[in-house]
């Protein structure tokens, strides 16, 4: 654990010293929040901002997870990984540190979005609701960062991974309950949205914001993220043991 935290610390230092990276990962969700939250809803019952904010939080964590996927691949390409692998620290701590870092980074970005949403008029929720939301976002972050890392290790080069990233994020987002509720969807989209892991996270975050405890969605997320971490660990061992 100590070693994994050392990796997290290193990645946070490196990330925080590249202001452009910090800004660019925040720009997209900010734009969504401002345009979707303030401009789009012409007719909507209640506060549309309260409806989209959870989905934009989830989207922030997803984008952070996907963009962080290439991080371990870069460590491998640039020769850092070979140094790390020859160290006495357990090799799993490299992966654990990476997933932790990407998830923490996603949660930090989500916090910024949350603050902005409150500033522009979203309702302030109870501490328990926020706690639940963060728990959901954490599990979802772990799921997407290990998914990204697995795919990146599998593809092995940056170009393919960038293609994967843009190919995956938008469709996932639109085919979910991010912007519209189930009852407004055509039947075909309804089923896709029902199977979309993004929907689980969004539905769960929304339910948490509404004050209920979404046990079913959270259990599904837990199972998904555990499976994804295990799969990622397997891919990591394969990629590093020759």
């Amino acid at each position: 654990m100590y070693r994994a935290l050392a990796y997290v610390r290193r990645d946070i230092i490196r990330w925080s010293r590249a202001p452009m990276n910090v800004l660019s990962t925040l720009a997209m969700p900010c734009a969504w929040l401002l345009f979707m939250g303030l401009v789009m809803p012409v007719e909507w019952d209640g506060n549309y901002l309260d409806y989209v904010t959870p989905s934009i939080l989830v989207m922030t964590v997803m984008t952070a997870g996907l963009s962080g996927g290439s991080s371990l691949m870069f460590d491998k390409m640039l020769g850092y990984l070979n140094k790390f692998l020859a160290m006495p620290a357990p090799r799993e701590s490299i992966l654990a540190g990476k997933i932790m870092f990407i998830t923490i980074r996603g949660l930090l970005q989500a916090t910024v979005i949350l603050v902005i949403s409150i500033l522009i008029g979203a309702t302030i929720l109870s501490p328990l609701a926020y706690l639940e939301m963060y728990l959901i976002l954490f599990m979802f972050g772990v799921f997407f960062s290990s998914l990204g890392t697995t795919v990146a290790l599998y593809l092995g080069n940056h170009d393919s991974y960038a293609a994967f990233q843009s190919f995956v994020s938008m469709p996932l987002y639109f085919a979910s309950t991010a912007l519209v509720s189930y009852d407004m969807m055509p039947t075909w989209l309804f089923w896709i949205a029902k199977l979309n892991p993004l929907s689980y996270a969004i539905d769960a975050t929304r339910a948490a914001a509404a004050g209920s405890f979404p046990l079913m969605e959270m259990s599904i997320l837990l199972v998904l993220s555990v499976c994804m971490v295990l799969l990622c660990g397997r891919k990591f061992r394969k990629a590093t043991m020759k």
Partner: protein
Amino acid sequence: MKILAHGLTKDYGNNRAVNGIDLSVDNEVYGLLGPNGSGKTTTVSMLTTLMRPTAGSAVICGHDIATEQSAVRECMSYVPQDMAVDIRMTGRENVDFFARLYGIRDRHERRRRVEDALEIMNLSDRADDLTKGYSGGMRRRLELAQALVHQPEVLFLDEPTVGLDVAARRSIWEYIVNLKNHGVTIFVTTHQMDEAERYCDRVGILKKGDLVNEGVPSDLTSQMKSVITIRTDSHAPLKELPEGVALVRDENGEIMVTSDNGSESLPAMLALLNDEGIKVYSSTVREPTLEDVYLQSVGKMNSDSDGFNQKQFENMMRRR
């Protein structure tokens, strides 16, 4: 023995990269030489537990590389060829990061070790600068500091001077020799024959995965002959040669001979020519270097030189 290998072998599919090599290295600078693709990096990867050998075994500081991997990693450090330091971190942060990875939890102990490592590598005064501004030589020294913070018994270096200028190369080697004098076993791969000859206590030469030659550089070179070239005014062939001297070429007044000891044979040759009344314009002795040993060991098998037509080249040069 700090490094002991028996029949170490690695196959990539049907391709044998390392073919059953034996090594025994103690507190010394051991240089592994060989052309690109001869299996140097593969050998180091196996010894540093980055790769599993197909066959054979090796023991580092008494720990088996196959069954006691973490104990092996506990006693050695490895600096790969690609220069990888985090450029958005300071020198001190880079070393501190490694100290944490090596599990030095105590803050004071860690600070002390980081300072020591920076001090040894002469980086203390630039320790708080981002490594982005470091020169190639400084980055390499920082990598050595990262490796030293762990106080390893064995240090593996893959091409430590590649891409550095002459002064930086020399300084890196001086640090390496200094570390050896403080009890660290150094296992280094390199392409630089002159550096290996000067700084390595022993070298091994790999050719297509086989260890074809091994020994102290001066022993290896003393097995090779020196080359003596003499230019004279006589176009007549020499009638006799001093003892221990073999003729290579004698044409157009240029005599080329080889001898086990060039500095002794040259006066003998000159005396002989003097007796015969032949005037000598110039004479040179070239003592054998590790490069000659290397080229003889690996053969001139480089694909690059296969296509080179020596005869044609000489003709071309003569026409100038």
